[in-house]
């Protein structure tokens, strides 16, 4: 069985990427299972998706904890421990990273013990499909290529089918098929290495009753949500032109995450650690002095 795990942020298209790989493999007559996992998050939050491929009926379900391939749509996720990009990396043959940076450097920087393959999907997708496009087609095709599904008509059909199901326009789908084709020019199948035999079973934990607070879902530390830096979810960053700002305070009042405060001169200041980039402030600003900037990280 081939087990593939995709990591990205809501909006990157990792769920659709996992489905493109699934559809392509299914089209070649293989058994397939694909699924995403996400909680009560939104655009920009860490999301994972999984594809299992086998010749036989698949007798696994749920999260892929022992991936053969890991594909990463956004390398900034390596700094988010909650995203757990390298969980089970000891099973992986290759980690693919959407990055223009040197692959050896990336392996060293993030402590990746297996070979790293890179391709700058962000630039390719922007150039071929357009600004702000998701990586679903290019990332899904990268997975197909690495998994050895390189038949162009199979991959094109899979991209076509999955994007049609999202009701994209025929023009946009054609651009994505073109981008996918270019990914196939750059990537080829990797050899999947022999997996370590069996799982190391974690022993059973004997349950202990914890009196009161520790046994109940109560958070005593006030204001700790600020420690969850949801600023990493942001795709667009609001920027306030203080020269044009009238200090009306509407952005401060309307921010749903209390990520704008007023300084001593009553000018608004954005807390970029926690601003999720919803851009309600931009919409609400009566003098239009808040603009959106594409977020650039790393």
């Amino acid at each position: 069985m081939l087990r593939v795990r995709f990591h990205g942020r809501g909006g990157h298209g990792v769920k659709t990427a996992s489905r493109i790989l699934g559809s392509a493999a299914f089209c070649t007559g293989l058994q397939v299972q694909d699924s995403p996992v996400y909680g009560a998050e939104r655009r920009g939050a860490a999301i994972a998706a999984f594809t299992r491929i086998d010749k036989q009926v698949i007798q696994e379900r749920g999260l892929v904890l022992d991936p053969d391939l890991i594909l990463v749509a956004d390398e900034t996720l390596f700094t988010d421990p909650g995203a757990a990009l390298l969980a089970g990396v000891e099973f992986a043959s290759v980690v693919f990273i959407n990055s223009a940076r040197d692959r050896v450097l990336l392996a060293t920087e993030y402590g990746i013990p297996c070979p790293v393959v890179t391709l700058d999907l962000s630039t390719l997708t922007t150039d071929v499909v357009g600004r702000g496009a998701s990586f679903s087609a290019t990332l899904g095709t990268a997975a197909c290529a690495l998994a050895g599904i390189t038949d162009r008509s199979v991959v094109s059909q899979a991209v076509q089918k999955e994007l049609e199901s999202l009701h994209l326009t025929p023009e946009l789908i054609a651009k994505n098929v073109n981008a996918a084709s270019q990914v196939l020019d750059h990537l080829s199948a990797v050899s999947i290495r022999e997996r370590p035999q069996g799982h190391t079973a974690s022993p059973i934990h004997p349950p202990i009753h914890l009196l009161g607070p520790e046994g109940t879902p109560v958070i005593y530390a006030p204001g700790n949500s600020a420690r969850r830096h949801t600023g990493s979810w942001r795709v667009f960053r609001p920027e306030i032109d203080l020269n044009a700002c009238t200090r009306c305070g509407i952005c401060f009042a309307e921010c749903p995450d209390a990520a704008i405060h007023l300084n001593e001169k009553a000018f608004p200041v954005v807390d970029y650690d926690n601003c999720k980039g919803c851009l309600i402030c931009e919409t609400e600003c009566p003098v239009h002095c808040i603009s959106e900037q594409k977020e650039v990280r790393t």
Partner: protein
Amino acid sequence: MTTGLETGCALLTGNATAAWAARLADVDYVPAFPITPQTEIIESLAAWSSGGEIPARVVNLDSEHSMITAAGAAAATGCRAFTATSSQGLLYAMEALYTVAGWRVPFVLVNVSRGLAAPITLEPDHNDILAARDSGCIQIHAETCQEVLDSILMGYRIAEDPRVRLPVIVNMDGFYLSFTREPVALPDPARVRAFLPAFDPGAVAFRASRPIAQGVGALGGPLYTHFRHQAHLAARNALTVHEEVATAFELEFGRSYDVIERYQMDDAEYVLVMAGSFATKAKAAIHTLRARGRRVGLLRLRLIRPWPAEAIRRELAGRRAAAVIDQNISPGLGGILFQEVAATMISSQSRPGVMRSFVGGLGGKDISPGEFMHVVDVLENSGPDEPTEPELLYTEADWSQIHPLLVIAQTPDRHSNEEAAP
């Protein structure tokens, strides 16, 4: 997207499959209320309805309580009704579930299992669906997306049979089936019509020209007992009806279902008893255990109401040991289905010498291969006189995730309040 009808097989999520089943069953009416992880089912049906692809009327109600009442009322007029919910939604509808079962009206409800609050979660366990076990509704628990589709089609035949006339709940696990695509054979609509003709309500249907009163009060113990017990007898009939429907289904579509599923049972000395999609994980573990020479099998419960007592007695008789792995917990008792399996076996002379209760997979927690190995180890090393306290399947790796969160929560007086479990 291709409909799959051309090719016969498609990659579909459990939610998409449920919507397709309702479409193929040619339902008339879909009262709806959104709740994760079920919402995609009614979204699909609503899109088809508003696009004119299906004739069904989809109506958003103000709550699950109204939704179930509306489904029951529609069924009482002779409509074929379909609806779906999850978790808190099913509990909010609980009063109405008992009511429509008492009305003796047939429809199919899909429950997408999700653990109950508090604490709130999105992932599955079976406390929601098992809370409805005494309502009078028939319950079928699916393991795969294909089984979701097939159980809904079979469900209408069972519900509408004059010997049953009760609502059928088809249960699938949230995420593990609801959001997971796997190959599903979508049957040809003409063959579905042959298997499942239009609902014939017989004499029990509202007509403007022929007023009747349904679901009337029954004050006084003897009268109430009579009607409530009739629902019990009708539910028992569903065992026979299921068998007939399964035979017809196999003839039409080639897939065969029993009230229970037997997996590697022929020579099994040790049996795992489970319900739902986590049974797939048990099958993988059994595959590994068998390769090591250990004779383990799986008894998967499909029909949970009516309770398939005869089939369970037959399958567990003569085994050395059985473990019921409950994906639910009744605080103060343990696993719910263990009690029912144990009660079923108590009168059997050849019941397994050891019967043990395990609780696992709560809130979607994985049951890892190591945990299945542990269960079988316990069975092999238990004697008949040992206590049968339920054991929680929870690993040191699971526990190690909790400590950092307790630190963030800044629980007061950490470390001073520990006491050993009784």
